[in-house]
């Protein structure tokens, strides 16, 4: 895939020593993801029996999911250690458009709920 005469300088390399550190990080992250998933599934199975408020359960699911997404993107996809310019190029457009979408879901959702209860 090399088109210039210069050697390709963007491919990452690291030593045996750094590799050991990276592998430790990978397995630590694995345990974090596993624990979060286990908490989510067990909460999904017991919340009715333990009569935990659904609103609280739902919010816990959403917070844990976003935490999981952060760990995957930051560590496994390595975005945390990329240059700030690359991080911003990916995160800012996504966040803007996703928030715009959510804004519409909520405003339209409130509207449709309103006309279901108070038809014209």
């Amino acid at each position: 895939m090399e088109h210039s005469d210069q050697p390709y300088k963007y491919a990452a390399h690291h030593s045996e020593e750094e590799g050991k550190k990276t592998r430790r990080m990978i397995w630590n992250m694995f345990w974090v993801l596993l624990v979060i998933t286990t908490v989510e599934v067990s909460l999904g199975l017991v919340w009715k029996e333990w009569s935990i408020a659904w609103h609280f359960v739902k919010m816990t699911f959403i917070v844990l999911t976003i935490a999981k997404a952060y760990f995957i993107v930051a560590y496994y996809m390595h975005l945390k250690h990329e240059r700030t310019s690359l991080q911003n190029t990916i995160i800012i457009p996504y966040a803007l458009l996703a928030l715009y979408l959510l804004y519409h879901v909520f405003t339209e959702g409130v509207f449709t709920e309103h006309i279901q209860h108070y038809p014209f």
Partner: protein
Amino acid sequence: MSHTEVVDSKTAWGGGTSPFGAGYGKLMMWFFLMSDALSFTGFLAAYGFYRHNFSAIWPSAENVFTHFPFVHGHQPLLYVALMTFILIMSSVTMVLAVEAGHRMDKKKVMVWMFWTIVGGLIFVGSQAWEWYHFIHGTELGAFELGIGTYTLPDGTIEQTQGIIGRWTDESKTILELPWRQTVGDITTPFLQLKGDELSAVLANGHEIHGANLTHNEYGHPLFADFFFFITGFHGTHVFSGVVLNFIIFVNVIMGTYEKRGHYEMVEKVGLYWHFVDLVWVFVFTFFYLV
């Protein structure tokens, strides 16, 4: 792996180097994943909107996906939890392959890529199995009402078209309809029909088993539509991910990247594979848990 060099903002954008410190392919993969993430955000936002809109007759996933292969009985959520675990595990093996690539350890890259492909195939197979059960449905089935109206005991008139009634047991003598009923002080979320009232309702409508794009025994047909569309779109991503991983795996065996001097291609398909896992994290929460 770590980009420790100092970036001078005056020269970084002056040409001759990537201001992002990333190669063309990797940068384009990131842009693609960002736009693909927006597609999935759109699908899940639409799902959330309709789910809320029809919350009274929206099926709960724990009542739909209750099977575990080779195990009889009611096992809500367990199989999909296992699928989630397998996909997370394959993400771990993928990132280990990327790490081995940074050390130019060809043998380790091969091993970890192999296990990533195996995990991906198990996941796609599990999804096929789950689709089969969802389409096939239960033996008991449900009853879908035809066009008409029904007057509730309190005088409210309800449209009957498309309303899904569920049998309380195998004798099929009592049908539960998702209409709120108030008798005295007690409000029940379901209206129970039996005897003559039931026969009158049964004359107009039909039995349904399982789900397709227009009928869904578990509740609103839109649930089935969204299920097929979102998990199908995600499954297509997993499948193409497995194909890409396999191509790169063959290249690793043939020594293509050894000769090239770096394993950046493994890193690029790795990004794609983590993205597939990332989407599943959200699908799992919004489809199966919430």
